[in-house]
Each structure stands twice: as C-alpha cells, then as structure tokens.
C-alpha cells in the first residue's frame, strides 16, 4: 500500500462514492471510471481504489480545515 490508509478511510470513502451522482466520471490517465467502476475499485481495494480513497481522505482533511 502506497498510502497510510486506515480501515475507517476505506469505509468513509466507500460510503461517499456510493453517494456520488452518476453524472460524473473520473479519468485516471489511461482509465475511465464511472460511478460503478469507482465503487468496485474501492471495494476490491485495487491500486486505483487506493488513489480514490487517498483523494477522499485529502478532501475530508480540506473540509475539516475550512
């Protein structure tokens, strides 16, 4: 694992991505991920899933600082 992610980080991110509107996709260069694929990557804890959870963690920290 490249990031220091806790079990809680994974669960928070999974809940957040389940609430993601289906009108937005992410592109991680070389990979297009719609909502269903984003959730799948997080559930299966793939490398792309790690990036997604780390992004979500960054975001939560930014919200807390605002």
């Amino acid at each position, binding site marked *: 694992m490249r990031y220091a992610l806790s079990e809680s980080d994974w669960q928070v991110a999974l809940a957040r991505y389940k609430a993601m509107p289906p009108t937005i*996709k*992410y*592109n991680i260069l070389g*990979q297009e991920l719609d909502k269903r694929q984003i959730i799948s990557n997080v559930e299966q804890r793939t490398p792309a899933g790690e990036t997604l959870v*780390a992004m979500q963690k960054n975001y939560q920290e930014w919200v807390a600082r605002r």
Partner: protein
Amino acid sequence: MPQRNKALFVRPSEDDGLGANRYGFYWLQPLIAESLRRRISVMDLHSFYATSEHFSLGLSEHDPLFVFGFGHGDGDTYTGQNYDVILEACQNDQVLRGRVVYLLSCHTATVLGQSMVQKGALSYIGYQENFVFATQDPPPANPLSDGFARAFFEPALEVAYALVRGQTTGVAYRRSQVSFNNWVEFWARQPGPEAPFLIEALLWDKNNQVLIGSSAETIATPTQASQGNLVIPIATIIAAGALLAL
C-alpha cells in the same frame, strides 16, 4: 543547443483505446493555437506521431527548448500512442539536457522528472501521483465543451500557456497552482452534487504538481499575440502531422 521560441508537443489520441487521451488531444489544440499566435515554432506529435521514433526525430530536427508531453506515465516512464515508451529514466532522458519539460502524466515526478534534471534538463514540471480529471457522464461529443473537464485542463495547461507567453518556469508553476485554487473555490460555491467530487480531484492534482530544477527559465521571448493570424491552421497541423514552423 535547444532553440528558444521552439516547442514540441506530444498528444496521443483516443485511437489507442484510452479514453483519457481523447480529452488531452482536444484540450491541447487551443494551446497549440496560442503558441502559434505567440510566434512559437511548433512541432505537434499527435496520435500516431506520438511515438518514441518521432520524438527522437523531433528533438534532433526541431531542437526545441520546450517539450510538453501528455499521456500515460508511471514513476520512470512517459508513454505516447499505444503506450509506446517515449521517455525512460536513465535510458534516454539525457536527450532533455538543456530543455524545459512539462509532463501532464501520472507519477513521472517521482523518478523520471528527478532523473532528467540530474542529467541536465533545466526544469521539469509534473505530477507525483495519478493525474486525475473528471468528465461529464455521459461525455459531450466535443471534450472542449465538457464543463467538468475544463476545471482540470485550464489549471493544468496554465503551465504551458504561461511559458509560451514568455513567463518563467516558477511563475508558470505558481499560476497553475493559483488556477487550481480558483477552480476549487468556484466549485465550492456550486450547489450541485458533483461539486465535492470535483474538488477532491482538483485538490489531489494541485497537491501533487511539482517543479524540479530551475524556476527562472523562460522558453519564449514575450511578444504580443499576432493579430493577423487569428484563424489558426489546426487542421493544417493535423493534416501535415508533424512540423509546422512559424
């Protein structure tokens, strides 16, 4: 010796099956147009020209001071069309000696960017992590009209816009960072349910963008944009495929 006011752009297309490249291919077109307006001599390695063979030829024939590559990457490699390896740390990155490089690509800051600067590249700007951008789902026919993608490509491309307008690498980097911040603030004011997901990706890209090497380099002589050349021959560039000197 690398030539001022000369640039080489690499932009693989969607022909290689990677949907993300479609966006980069389109979003670089206005940048190329602006470069031409600024009297930058441009070599545009697009789609099937975005290969190591054409890259090597482009550097030797065109000898640009500025090299901008869009495409898939990892720590030590940058790739073009169909994952063709264009740059690899400690294999061929010495060809960037004396040049300013911007790679809009994943992870290359971790190894390749550092390696090329150690081998004499003047400045490198790129990303330590996956470069992530958002698009509308379903996407519009024209990527340039995708309002979500705009929030990512405008700040990411600001690096290159600033450079072709004659600003230093340090200013170009800072302008890009400010533009990321501005887009974060823009989306923070929007009520739509997509906003938090756009913000998380924008913060990610901003925090992972780095400048390695000199912050004082310029690649172009500041000029007024050419008023007589407002219709930019993008179609000509695409048709010609490779070298277009102005």
